[in-house]
């Protein structure tokens, strides 16, 4: 009896608390920054769509979703930044409407994607250019200049000291200390590693002999840290380290970034502008509406910063339920428009250059 009434009282408190809690929440955060707001019209869709994939484009996606939902009230897009591979898996399993990925679909993934799209093609649409910074921690030495061969030498452990001949030659006048270089790499598998190793393999094949992969290869030296925040944290806290990480992480922790020698022979500082130029020489390897790119890492374009990754949205050409298809088309039309691309520099990325972008726009138009 006694226990019963106490239990009832307790239950009452819990219910009251739950009611109070559910009454006061709000989804209405009106913080949209004016400069990023779209000037043109968006052909709004309705409803809710799930997407998943690359964490490298998370901040771009955040900003796009913010602008899109501000303009199209009542819509909702949930982007789960759990990694390119997981995103593609969720996409081919039919769990999400489109995936974000740091690399285009691989041949073995194409069949599964085709099945998911009810037999029609899945297309790769480059949407964001993510510059990869070579970051280091060396007191008193700012603006370190490195050629691809030197970078490859450092990350294979062939160059062991900061005052090595190879580095000194490229940085005359810099006070290089006689200390060990401690390379840091991503211990988890990531698109960043894949693109960085692609770059090394393309520009310094004699030194970097391993095939590009999401996993740091065994010829690579150093120690691994988990995720971009782990890597950047490790570089920030340990003197003598060097690593590679997306530009926004380097910016946020104010890490020292190296200038990289491009195919034209100039040492280029990392910026949204210089990274965007690197895509100029990119070749479209996808057929039809598929805009999968092959980058030219040895680009001779003046002022181009060569280490970039392109992150794609992977979507069905046809075959999605009508509601979802309409949403995906409407959203991707926005992100590939000038309005969509102009927000990128403010969140740490570079826009897709116009000649590639027009192909993407045409492909998005063909989605149904």
């Amino acid at each position: 009896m006694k226990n019963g009434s106490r239990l009832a009282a307790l239950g009452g408190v819990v219910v009251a608390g739950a009611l109070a809690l559910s009454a006061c929440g709000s989804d209405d955060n009106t913080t949209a920054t004016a400069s990023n707001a779209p000037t043109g019209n968006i052909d709004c869709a309705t409803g809710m769509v799930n997407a998943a994939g690359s964490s490298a484009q998370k901040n771009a996606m955040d900003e796009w979703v913010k602008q899109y939902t501000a303009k199209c009230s009542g819509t909702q897009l949930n982007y789960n930044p759990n990694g390119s591979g997981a995103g593609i898996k969720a996409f081919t399993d039919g769990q999400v409407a489109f995936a974000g990925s740091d690399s285009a679909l691989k041949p073995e993934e194409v069949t599964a994607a085709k099945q998911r799209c009810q037999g029609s093609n899945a297309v790769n649409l480059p949407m964001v250019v993510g510059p990869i910074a070579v970051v280091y921690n060396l007191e008193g030495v700012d603006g370190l200049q490195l050629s691809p061969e030197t970078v490859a030498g450092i990350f294979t452990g062939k160059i062991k000291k900061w005052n090595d001949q190879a580095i000194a030659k490229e940085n005359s006048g810099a006070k290089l200390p006689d200390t060990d270089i401690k390379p840091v790499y991503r211990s988890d598998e990531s698109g960043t590693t894949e693109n960085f190793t692609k770059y090394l393999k393309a520009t310094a094949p004699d030194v970097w002999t391993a095939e590009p992969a999401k996993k740091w290869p065994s010829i690579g030296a150093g120690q691994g840290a988990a995720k971009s925040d782990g890597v950047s944290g490790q570089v920030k806290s340990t003197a003598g380290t060097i690593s590679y990480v997306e530009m926004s992480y380097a910016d946020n922790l104010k890490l020292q970034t190296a200038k990289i020698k491009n195919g034209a022979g100039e040492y280029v500082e990392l910026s949204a502008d210089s990274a965007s130029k690197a895509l100029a020489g990119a070749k479209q390897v996808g057929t039809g509406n598929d805009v999968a790119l092959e980058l030219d890492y040895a680009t001779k374009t003046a002022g181009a910063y060569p280490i970039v990754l392109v992150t794609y949205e992977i979507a069905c050409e046809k075959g999605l339920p009508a509601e979802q298809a309409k949403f995906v088309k409407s959203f991707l039309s926005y992100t590939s428009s000038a309005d969509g691309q102009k927000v990128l520099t403010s969140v740490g990325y570079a826009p897709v250059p116009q000649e590639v972008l027009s192909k993407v726009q045409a492909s998005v138009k063909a989605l149904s």
Partner: protein
Amino acid sequence: MTTLTKPTDDLPPAARGSLGSVSAARKLKDRLVQILVYIAFALAVVPLVSVLWTVLTNGLGRLDATFLQFSMNGVGGRDEGGGAYHAILGTLEQVAITSVIAVPIAVLTAVYLVEYGGNGRLARAVSFFVDVMTGIPSIVAGLFVLALWLLTFGFTYSGFAGSLALTILMIPTVVRATEEMLKLVPNDLREASYALGVPRWRTVCFVVLPTALTGIITGVMLAVARVMGETAPLLLTIFFTKAINANPFEGPQAALPTFIWEQAGDPNQASIDRAWTGALVLILLIMLFNLGARLVARFFRPVSR
């Protein structure tokens, strides 16, 4: 003295010493142990306080009304503001569902193992599998629910799917803790109850379980605390959203651990601040539960032992 220095287990040495004083050696030993216990305590308190202090100093800054009342809907990584309301709501619902499913099953299982199972084949099989599953990596539980519930049965992402994954993680912990506590209930109590003609199930429900109640609640709270902090299985099952979803049975839902995970990995100070505050809120929530559970335990406890 030679016979006296060989104590047997059931006869304390003191029983055979001179009645008046305790020998210096024994006193010294007693002191020594006391000092060791104090040192152990101090040793543990330093890091633990440091952990709490880190969370407090980093988390208090954003612990404001906005954080508790708003979701992250329409808030980018670099933006200030935004809140974790959606995540708090999601976590509360998921953990409530998890507890409602897992605790009765686990406690009944432990009762079966201790009171009924004896050394039977079923009991041995159950405790075997419970032992195996105490070490289950959390992501595997998520994977199982993903493969079975979402892909095979075709349900969509929902808070409930997350609860199922958490249930898998919670059951073994609660079974194991409850089992230990039930084993400690003195047999005298059971026998006294039987002697009064009380049927077995009433003995278990009204004598054995209440006696072990505080211990069981501690075990349950430890399990709740563990599953409330799980990220990996949730990402596979509840998916991820920045908006409020009050319905745990349909559509993606947020949770505090996934909120913290997402915010902590973001390269912006505003996000990292939100992550710390999220952690602080999570700890506060678990603290509240703990307090509540202890109060409940006090209500239902047998008058005195």
